[in-house]
């Protein structure tokens, strides 16, 4: 496996090439630009047999690769910050279409004022949309995550698009050693994309997206959530398979660094996890038992894994490189949720897509909940979907 010195962005391009992507569309934005440039170069020089669509905006970039995915091709795009916001509508659309697709997101701050540097607002802003969302710590992981994203996204238990986040400049423009697997090795593990779960083509007789009854809509959304839950398993599996192939594994949804004997844990995601690990080592040298839980996948969110490991800790510190204004760090709230709160709590997802939820529905649901609490003492449910 040849090792190369690559920037994060060129690593993305290498991975896209290894994945034998067929259609690429992307729009330049700092600090993602060198991905587009490199891919354009590869396509023009025949290093990769793909069609590149030089779109006029990010909305069109994602719409184009989405169209390509609907047409059965393996497709890829990349963006950052305002580009991601500008395509946001299509981000939602692509996920609910259940088409496999991969996008690299080079994380960057959102203006005003203009700022091209790293920040996680852009990628965290996508957390509701139904995309698998992963975050790399270094360029090696960038390569591995991009390749794995195709596998996960195209897995029949998942069929959701996948985003791979890499930190702007910290990875995108930092050159570091990356083991690049041979094409044959990747080929053996990542076969050509199958025309699944459906393809829009002459004769397919398939219409994607016309109006359903509200209840059917709600079921579709529930099925996305199921696919997310499936993805948790798939991600861990892929991590193992990949290990067999390359000798590298990361721990699936979360990487726990020195957490086994820790009393305090730092939770975060992205490149600065390296700094946190280094800091943990130093603190340990000084007798403070610190570990790091690096969230590799924001979506599906590793609630169970975190809970398992962190519930017994004395202190948990969540670092957010973004903020949900008027509340706080988005990872923070979700980590706290994973560690549960004091009263019995049940989260109900209902009424989505207009499904009528009336007085009697509430009455029944609350009554059942009360009964359960009274019987079981303490109840905790994350997302109960009513009537599905």
């Amino acid at each position, binding site marked *: 496996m040849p090792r190369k*010195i690559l920037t994060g962005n060129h690593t993305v391009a290498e991975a896209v090439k290894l994945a034998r992507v067929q259609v690429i569309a992307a729009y330049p934005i700092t600090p993602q630009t060198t991905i587009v440039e490199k891919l354009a170069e590869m396509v023009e020089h025949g290093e990769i047999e793909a069609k590149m669509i030089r779109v006029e905006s990010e909305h069109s970039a994602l719409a184009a690769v989405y169209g390509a995915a609907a047409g059965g091709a393996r497709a890829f795009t990349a963006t950052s910050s305002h580009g991601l916001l500008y395509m946001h509508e299509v981000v939602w659309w692509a996920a609910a279409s259940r088409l496999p697709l991969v996008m690299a997101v080079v994380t960057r701050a959102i203006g005003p004022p203009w700022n091209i540097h790293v920040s996680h607002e852009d990628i965290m802003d996508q957390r509701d949309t139904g995309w698998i969302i992963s975050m790399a710590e270094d360029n090696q992981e960038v390569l591995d995550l991009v390749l794995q994203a195709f596998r996960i996204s195209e897995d029949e238990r998942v069929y959701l698009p996948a985003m791979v986040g890499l930190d702007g400049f910290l990875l995108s423009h930092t050159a*570091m*050693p990356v083991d690049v697997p041979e094409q044959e090795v990747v080929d053996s593990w990542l076969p050509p994309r199958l025309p699944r779960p459906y393809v829009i083509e002459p004769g397919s007789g398939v219409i994607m997206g016309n109006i359903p009854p509200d209840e059917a809509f709600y079921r579709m959304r529930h099925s996305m959530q199921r696919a997310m839950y499936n993805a948790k398993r798939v991600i861990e599996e892929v991590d193992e398979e990949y290990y067999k192939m390359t000798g590298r594994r990361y721990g699936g949804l979360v990487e726990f660094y020195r957490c086994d004997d820790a009393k305090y844990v730092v939770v975060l995601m992205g490149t600065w996890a390296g700094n946190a690990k280094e800091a943990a080592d130093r603190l340990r040298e000084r007798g403070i038992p610190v570990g790091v839980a690096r969230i590799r996948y924001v979506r599906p969110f590793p609630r169970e894994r975190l809970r398992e490991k962190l519930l017994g800790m004395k202190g948990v510190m969540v670092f957010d490189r973004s903020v949900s204004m008027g509340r706080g760090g988005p990872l923070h709230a979700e980590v706290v949720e994973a560690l549960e709160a004091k009263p019995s709590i049940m989260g109900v997802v209902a009424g989505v897509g207009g499904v009528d939820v009336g007085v009697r529905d509430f009455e029944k649901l609350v009554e059942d909940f009360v009964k359960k609490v009274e019987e079981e003492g303490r109840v905790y449910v994350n997302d109960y979907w009513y009537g599905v």
Partner: protein
Amino acid sequence: MIEEYRFHGRGGQGAVTAARLLVGAAHREGRYGQAFPHFGAERRGAPVVAFARISDRPIRVHEQVREPDVVVVLDPTLFKLVNVLEGLREGGVLVVNSKEDPGIQGPYKVFIVDATGIALSLGLRVAGWPVVNTSILGAVVKATGSVSLDSVVDEIKSNWPGRMGEANAQAAKLAYEKAVRVR
């Protein structure tokens, strides 16, 4: 131990490339490295900064180099514009493209080399500017001994195949020979 480098140059001089080549050379020796620019708009002629780290172990730190072991100055005029010594560790190394001793005070080792002169003597110019980033690497090798001259030369050649590579490699070699410690 991680060695940390900071390169000072001007937009167009290739400070980032110098950092990358250095890391590439280390990589040829089985070591690990990291090279990155300071993330701002790079304008031709404007002062720019780049960083590198080299280590025997994989590097997982991702922060700006705050206390470099080595500072490399590609353009002597920068002394007047920026504090190139900022954060340089005690006993650290300063490598300057200069014909004369910049007269630095402080607990540092100072090396100079006329990288501009070397570049021009070899006809190394891009858009009228002398290419100093490859030549100065030779001086860095001399000053730090962290990587071998061969590795730097190989790295340069694999970056620019053909005549360009030869000339740049030659520049590094010459700089290696000519660099002198002045402090």
